[in-house]
């Protein structure tokens, strides 16, 4: 520890030789003072950029407010209008379908991918790196790329289908009311599967090899090992990953915004894009937009509180 002796101290405000410290310095270096001092910037950020806007959002839901103008109190009129709007019910349904299928498929494929990558083979590290790349690139770029793949006239899919003479007319993936949601979910899954893969792979690697060896000696088949060792061992990770993904998938704007912008006829409209369109798409009804967002908060908050507890417990807080 010699290298860390007093001679090397470079912080000018603290000459830390115990008996010469002034009272002010001693006060400043007390755990509690220092704790608050260190946390002050973080606290400021949280209060200013999360807590304050959040409270503001709640207030806005009771206002008729446009950008730049002060809001006018209108009680529950926003809520009443929303509940009377058939599009909103459509949006609730869409958001549920989008989230359930998006998260479900990501989970399923992510588990498959993790299991495959957990096998031993040559160049496995290279394969793993490659399969995780969709997670690292900006989601907007995935969405733009897929929009071009789906393109009516010259996109990759239609290009191939026509070439193989499988279709007479090209398919409008993103503007067909029956296909649009499916097409959007495919992109969500393509981009989000690696997140599950990474989580599950780490979990798989933490399972002691001895468990499988012992099971084998007892005559357990590969399937039995999977259902009685792998699945139970991964379960805590399953829950965390699903909840985290459910929060972020249901709240993500960019896939729907770029691929379909909610169309055709609101078939792919989900709550964040509806909020965006109400608040910033033309009419600038900030109050209505905030109401849409906040409507989903009670569901999200259950997930968030549950997940907060889990994450703190995992870290021994």
């Amino acid at each position: 520890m010699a290298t860390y002796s007093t001679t090397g101290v470079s912080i000018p405000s603290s000459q830390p030789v115990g008996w010469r410290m002034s009272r002010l310095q001693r006060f400043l270096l007390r755990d509690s003072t220092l704790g608050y001092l260190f946390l002050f910037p973080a606290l400021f950020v949280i209060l200013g950029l999360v807590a304050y806007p959040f409270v503001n959002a709640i207030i806005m839901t009771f206002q008729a407010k446009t950008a730049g103008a002060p809001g006018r109190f209108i009680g529950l009129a926003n809520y009443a209008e929303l509940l009377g709007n058939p599009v909103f019910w459509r949006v609730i349904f869409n958001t549920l379908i989008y989230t359930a299928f998006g998260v479900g498929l990501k989970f399923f494929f992510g588990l498959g991918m993790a299991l495959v990558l957990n096998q031993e083979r040559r160049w496995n590290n290279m394969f793993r790196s490659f399969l995780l790349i969709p997670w690292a690139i900006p989601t907007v770029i995935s969405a733009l790329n897929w929009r071009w793949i789906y393109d009516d006239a010259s996109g990759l899919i239609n290009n191939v289908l026509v070439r193989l003479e499988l279709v007479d007319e090209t398919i409008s993936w993103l503007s067909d009311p029956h296909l649009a949601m499916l097409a959007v979910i495919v992109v969500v899954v393509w981009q989000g599967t690696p997140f599950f893969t990474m989580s599950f792979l780490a979990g798989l690697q933490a399972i002691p090899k001895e468990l499988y060896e012992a099971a084998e000696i007892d005559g357990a088949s590969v399937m039995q090992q999977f259902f009685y060792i792998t699945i139970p061992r991964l379960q805590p990770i399953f829950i965390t990953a699903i909840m985290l993904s459910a929060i972020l998938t249901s709240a993500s704007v960019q896939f729907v915004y770029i691929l379909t912008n909610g169309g055709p006829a609101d078939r792919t409209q989900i709550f964040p894009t509806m909020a965006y369109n109400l608040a910033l798409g033309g009419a600038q009804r900030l109050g209505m937009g905030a109401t849409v967002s906040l409507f989903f908060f009670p569901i999200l908050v259950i997930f968030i509180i549950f997940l907060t507890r889990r994450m703190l417990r995992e870290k021994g807080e």
Partner: protein
Amino acid sequence: MTLSMTAQRRTVKGIGNFLLLLMLLWTAIPFYWMVATSLKRDKEIYGFEATLVPQEPTLGNYTTVFRDTPYLLFLRNSIIVAVGSTVLSMIIACLGAYAIARLNFPGRALLARGLVFTYLVPTSLLFIPMFAMMSALRLTDSLHGLTIAYLGFDVPFCTWLLMGYFKSVPVELEEAALVDGCNRVTALIRIVLPLALPALVVVTFFSFTHAWNEFLYAHVFTSTNSARTITTGLANFMSADVFFWGPLMASTVMSALPPVIMFLVLQRWVVQGLTLGGVKG
């Protein structure tokens, strides 16, 4: 169980290899299409002569991007915002995480809880009041504004991740330093930070790529090219009337490269960090 163990193993291995091939194709095809399109002339992109493999590959789309679009401006903006928010959130997060991990003071547990909670609140619940607030503060259409806005996500997340790492640095090292005359500040700088270097790398990666990839705030808070970052800039290319997929794909290829390279280089630490915190779905 009629199959012997070795037969079972061989079957599983075979299925695994087959699935791996499908997954590689599934992942690779969109990337292939992106790169292939970026290398084609318009003649090969649209219409009857459209090709699957570029017959006469050209870098023309790339020159178009640099010559005829504000791409370089978007790139500059993205770099400024990403570097700025990364540096700021690192400083704030290091101090905060150290306080929670090591110092004893009333309210510590509550603050830790608050951090996780705020990290999990998605931006799509906040962007409308944030937009109103940024407008009121005249911080819309400004790189400063965007940099500050990103701290709302980066600080809770980085603090949370670093907290775990700081806790794993043995307390004894720090106690020894305190006996040797360090105070808490110098102990943080000289003992904890050097030992948590891998964590700092991971946190840098996450906050940098977050700022690089973020779309909603960037899109909502900017209205002119002067402050547009790559994500919102490219989305805006698309909403222009004429689709020019060649240059657009060229710019997506270039924009995807920095985070991909960072990810490939830092992969080992990133995956480890992810399992500690959980990042994004």
